[in-house]
């Protein structure tokens, strides 16, 4: 393996001779192994190496970025010249106040599982088979599609202020889809698991969830249009809140007045039960890091505290514009970082505070309403309005979970959603980069087909 630190440091020196005011160089060498199962049969096993270098330079405040695959010195020099040429072609930006300065990066556990480096392709294949066996363990299941994947990489960042930092990262991911059929119906249950540690034992939960929901969904019902309380399963809460909170507090959007949370800092945007933290130090969570994509040390930060909006997320550019320090939210994407894009603002791991209710209690106390397990819709971060398909949801009647609802939508304003959180689950899951329990929202607009 190439000495990435030496490569990054020398590349910074070489780039600075080309005349930019600032630069950072990101070098990474990653490997990914995947096993995929189609309709219960092992279908494909893949291995990919992905070495490369990304160079970002600033000229009169304007940023230019270029990258190449591999570490060939001549290509890296070409890329450096391209990045400088890009930046020179742009406009002056006096809001750029410089890249982060060197600071102590505390040593952090929970980013790298050495076991993953020793895994053979057979181990990944076995993990996928084990998952598929669990997800398909019912005669009503007619097909199981599943995958297991690991990633391992070293990420090195150097900048013209003397930062030279490196971290090793690993990632492990499982996903399963069980398809069940009855005489009159067909439905699929999906689930996934994400960690920085090799945890094949996650299969038990992921496979069981996929299987159970495929079967539960066979019994279907239609829903009438109206206002109902909605319980968000961690899977739905994680998907929606990752974007709604993570995107809403992006300082770039705030400064340009493009976010529904503009002018809301210090104000109450949620109920007392709604608290959100951004936590890059969460052990084994896929969004964790010891330093962010610009070399700023990782730090846990309260975003919403008992309903009050406490902080936005900054990188060095947006922080410089306000004369403050970056919050360390510059991202290079994914559990194993990539050199293919310039860094951008993103949450690390969002953690939604847990409460004291069990899901059973939440269903029992809801009486009449909806349990939303899955939606893949994006909120409109400008207006704060959210409307989406309930891809998997269940009717709650007389305090019990009923049949699966077909062709129905859910709609609400995000701030109403946060303010209407009136019950919070006590068993969080880590899904889509968010650690969240189930949440009950006392009122949402359901659009039904009945």
């Amino acid at each position: 393996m190439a000495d990435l630190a030496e490569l990054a440091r020398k590349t910074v020196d070489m780039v600075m001779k080309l005349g930019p005011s600032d630069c950072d160089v990101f070098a990474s060498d990653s490997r990914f192994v995947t096993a995929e199962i189609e309709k219960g049969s092992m279908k494909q096993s893949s291995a990919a190496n992905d070495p490369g270098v990304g160079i970002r330079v600033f000229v009169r405040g304007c940023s230019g970025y270029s990258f190449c695959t591999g570490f060939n010195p001549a290509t890296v020099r070409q890329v450096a010249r391209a990045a400088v040429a890009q930046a020179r072609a742009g406009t002056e930006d006096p809001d750029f106040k410089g890249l982060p300065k060197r600071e102590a990066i505390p040593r952090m556990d929970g980013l790298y599982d050495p076991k993953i480096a020793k895994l053979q392709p057979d181990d990944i294949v076995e993990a996928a088979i084990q998952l598929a066996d669990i997800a398909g363990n019912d005669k009503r299941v007619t097909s199981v599609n599943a995958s297991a994947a690991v990633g391992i990489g070293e990420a090195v960042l150097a900048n013209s202020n003397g930062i030279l930092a490196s971290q090793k990262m690993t990632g492990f991911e499982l996903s399963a889809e069980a398809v069940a059929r009855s005489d009159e119906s067909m439905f699929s249950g999906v689930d996934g698991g994400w960690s920085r540690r090799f945890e094949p034992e996650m299969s038990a939960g992921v496979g069981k969830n996929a299987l159970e929901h495929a079967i539960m969904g066979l019994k279907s019902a239609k829903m009438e249009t109206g206002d109902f309380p909605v319980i968000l399963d961690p899977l739905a809460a994680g998907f929606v809140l990752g974007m709604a909170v993570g995107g809403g507090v992006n300082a770039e959007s705030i400064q340009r007045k493009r976010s529904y949370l503009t002018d809301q800092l210090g104000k109450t945007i949620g109920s007392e039960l709604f608290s959100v933290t951004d936590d890059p130090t969460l052990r084994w969570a896929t969004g964790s890091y010891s330093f962010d994509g610009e070399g700023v040390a990782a730090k846990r930060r309260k975003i919403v505290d008992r309903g009050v909006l406490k902080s936005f997320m900054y990188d060095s550019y947006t922080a410089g514009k306000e004369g403050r320090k970056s919050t360390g939210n510059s991202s290079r994407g994914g559990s194993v970082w990539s050199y293919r894009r310039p860094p951008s603002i993103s949450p690390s791991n969002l953690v939604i505070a847990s409460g004291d209710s069990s899901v059973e209690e939440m269903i029992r106390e809801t009486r009449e309403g909806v349990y939303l397990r899955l939606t893949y819709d994006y909120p409109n971060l400008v207006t704060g309005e959210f409307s989406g398909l309930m891809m998997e949801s269940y009717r709650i009647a007389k305090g019990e979970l009923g049949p699966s609802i077909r062709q129905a939508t859910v709609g609400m304003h995000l701030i109403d959603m946060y303010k209407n959180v009136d019950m919070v689950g006590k068993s969080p899951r880590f899904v889509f980069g968010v650690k969240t329990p189930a949440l009950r929202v006392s009122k949402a607009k359901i659009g039904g087909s009945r």
Partner: protein
Amino acid sequence: MEDLAEAAIAHAVRLGAEFADLRMESAVGTNIVVMDGRTKSLTALRESGCGIRAFMGGAWGFAVTNSLTKGGLKEAASSAVGMAKVAQAKAKTKFRIGEIRPVKANEKYPCKERPSDVAMEDKVRFVLALDKDMSRKDARVTSTNAKYDDAEIARVVANSFGTLVRSDEVWTIGACSAFARSDGVMQRGHAAFGSVGGYELMRTNDAVGLGDEAASQALRLLDSKPVPAGKFTVVLDNKMTGMLAHEAFGHACEADAIVSGSSVLEGLLGKKVADERISLVDDPKVENTFGYFSIDWEGVRAKKHVLIENGVLRGYMHNIETSSRMGVEPNGASRAQSYSGTPIIRMSNTYIGNGDRSKDEIISDLMDGLLIQGAQYGYVEPAKGQFMFKCDEAHRIKKGEVGERYRDASISGLILEVLNNVVAVGSDFMLGDPGYCGKSGQSARTTDGGPHLCLSNMVVGGLA
């Protein structure tokens, strides 16, 4: 590149692969983002690499390398065969890849002005002008984003049947987003234009008008309400009809969803799945579109995919594997985002064909419903049989008159029901905006469209 490709394939076969193929690429590209009158980021990419697949007894192995040398490719071929052996040992379903006629071709995408020959300063000037068109449109436009992307990709596809295809792909796309504010209300408008082709596309009126189009939409939406939720008869505009074709039916017609047992359309070939006025097609060979290609990423010549003809399900989109397993000819629907991904079945230009009603007739015949305009995004789970798609704006239709304006809303339906609820099919066919479709972590450039289309029993997800 061609010699290296053939040597790597031969090596994979020597090691025991029953079938092997590869995609070797060398790509350059540009991305320019302008925000609020200033360049925000300017990116130049330079990528090269090769992805090799080996097939053995019902399973595939896949390996990726960035080392485009004889040694590097040999190593990747060995790795692909090794991975195939690991997978094959555990594969329960055994099948073969039936031999197909090899293709030897050089494919050149149409291009008058290579993007790499255009000075960066010229491209930046173009994007700054788009951005300025938005901000000067109206004082209520408070923030702006203009974006430009281009790519030039030299790709070699080779396989062990003797296929050797060299494609020189080039495409360009511009896009604008405008943010408008008035009396505490904030709205966004957007517009995009792009196609396969060179920088000449960015000199057309379609491209230079993007800023005005995006800003006008944002301003219009300032005077809009949230859409009411519930069941409605809807009139879809050309863009939304295209998104319906793509989401509601296109994905469920991808043969990989059929062989994996996760499409509600499995077993329905030759059966009636839609109103007889409906014909639905995916055609990669429509020229001057973002979804265009003439040879797919497995080296198969692309064909027009007739999916629904007069309401009857006629076919699926295939790759070499699914066509072999289902005993039909491959029809060239396989694509990979880059050399580092395995080729999977993708849509290209997906559309519903013309009917016989004018747009005005469709609207004037509707007593109560919604006119749905402009496509944002959509998604589907073919195994659940449900889909949704989101519009930019909507209008109430009452007694044949277009009235009150609403903003973005999601529309949902059931795959097996939606095209049986046809009230009227328009005669004003048009392809819509360029877009990207995501599947299995890969992105593919696509276009879709159709005529205005009136459907009953659609569920609209609103806040009111």
